């Protein structure tokens, strides 16, 4: 069963957005890495690419459990595919996992969202995680007749994955850039408390869904390197 974030949950938890992550990292928390939970979070209407969700679920080969965001406990690995709006309940789940030393892969789906939804997406990323994003860039009008715009990942392993047409460049600032396409930074790694936040500006899930071997290799390597899970 897949449980989605409802509007009611959104409203009930709306106060959480106003509390930046770093304010809360100093509070006490219980480590959860021993629990080994791996989850793929379905944001329901706030996930802009369902094939991305399917891709991560397939790539985790049954190791990732389905997630009820309203009662989500901190996880060792939490993947949030193609996020557009990130409701407060999801922000709290992400934050809790990071505070507990988990790995969170937050994939932006803003390239396929309306301007209004992109604006909300941008605000949450900034307010909750201090991550700044730029406007989506369509790589293909410029690619006409030239090379395919591959996303080059440089950490934790080198991997080359097809672009997904529209990317959301990440502004320079917090974190380490770990992937670029056509010179644009499209993935970053950020230490948050005891955890690691990876933000993807180019959707990886559809490539996983289509069976891209290097995309799967990269995901496995990230999980292994960051969460110690193979």
């Amino acid at each position: 069963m897949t449980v989605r974030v409802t509007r009611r949950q959104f409203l009930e938890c709306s106060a959480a957005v106003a509390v930046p992550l770093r304010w809360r990292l100093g509070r006490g928390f219980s480590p959860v890495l021993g629990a080994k939970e791996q989850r793929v979070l379905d944001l329901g209407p706030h996930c802009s690419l369902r094939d991305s969700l399917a891709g991560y679920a397939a790539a985790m080969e049954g190791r990732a459990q389905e997630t009820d965001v309203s009662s989500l406990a901190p996880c060792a690995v939490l993947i949030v595919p193609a996020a557009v709006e990130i409701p407060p309940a999801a922000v709290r789940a992400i934050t809790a996992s990071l505070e507990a030393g988990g790995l969170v892969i937050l994939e932006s789906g803003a390239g396929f969202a309306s301007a209004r939804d992109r604006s909300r997406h941008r605000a949450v990323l900034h307010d909750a995680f201090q991550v700044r994003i730029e406007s989506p860039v369509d790589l293909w009008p410029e690619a006409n007749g030239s090379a395919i715009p591959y996303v080059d990942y440089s950490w934790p392993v080198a991997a080359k994955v097809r672009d997904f047409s529209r990317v959301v460049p990440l502004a320079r600032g917090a974190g380490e850039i770990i992937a670029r396409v056509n010179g644009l930074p499209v993935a970053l790694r950020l230490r948050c408390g005891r955890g690691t936040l990876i933000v993807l500006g180019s959707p990886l899930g559809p490539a996983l869904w289509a069976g891209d071997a290097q995309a799967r290799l990269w995901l496995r390597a990230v999980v292994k390197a960051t969460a110690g899970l193979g």
Partner: protein
Amino acid sequence: MKKSIGDNMFPKDWGFAQGLELVKRAGYDGIELWLGDMPWFQMSTSDADVRALRRAVESAGLVVSNVSTGLHWRSPLSARDPTVRAHAARIVERQIETAALLGADAVLVVAGLVTEEVPYNEVYQRSVEALKPLGDTAKQAGVRIGCENCNAEQRFLMSPREFWQFLGDVNHPAVGIHLDVGNIHDNGFAEQWIEMLGSRITRIHVKDVLKHRGRCGDQSVYTNLLLGDNNWPAIRAALTKVGYDGWLVAEMEARYRYAPDQQFFDTAQAMDRVIAGRL
């Protein structure tokens, strides 16, 4: 077998009624209606106007063989953008709705479009996923979806074995193949596609193909029946072997430069020869 031809073959500036009269006079049994191609049959055409089209067809002594569309070239089911995919699905749904209104039981769909930007594996996956629920919709309406083999243009499902696997992955009794015997070019042989996919064929488009010719200016790779490289005796024999007794639908790309109505008569006579096996 019965003969049909598309309304998109009507000479330019001809109206629907005039075209139907020509189709009947040339000896066809039915008409293929192309959603979105002709002014009288658009996505915005109301159900009442679709019923009026049916009455006009039946008044001309014809029936609607199937509903086709070229709209998926602009809005493919395999698009990366979910909003484009939703529109593509809506096009298929409208085809199904109108087919039911028109008394037809088959629609033609171009199921996926491989491009430089959207690679093959993505197109395959999305097309399979898109067709499953559409198959349910079609089944409820008593209609079958025929995915056309537009091999060269789609760059997708290039062999009969691959097409068979694709239909197996869709795994829906209401989804089959609308086989175009002219679209196979030099990738294979139409009669082998018929043999392998026989039970899954919903309709057959007929035209001939000049295998040695690529597209060049206004010179098409396609030509009129019996003028090209298709092995028509083998195609006819394969149709007999698999027990196909449905519609043959003429779809010519190259049009007569003069006397365009003559192409309807010539094509109908060639189809009669194919059906009769006098080859």
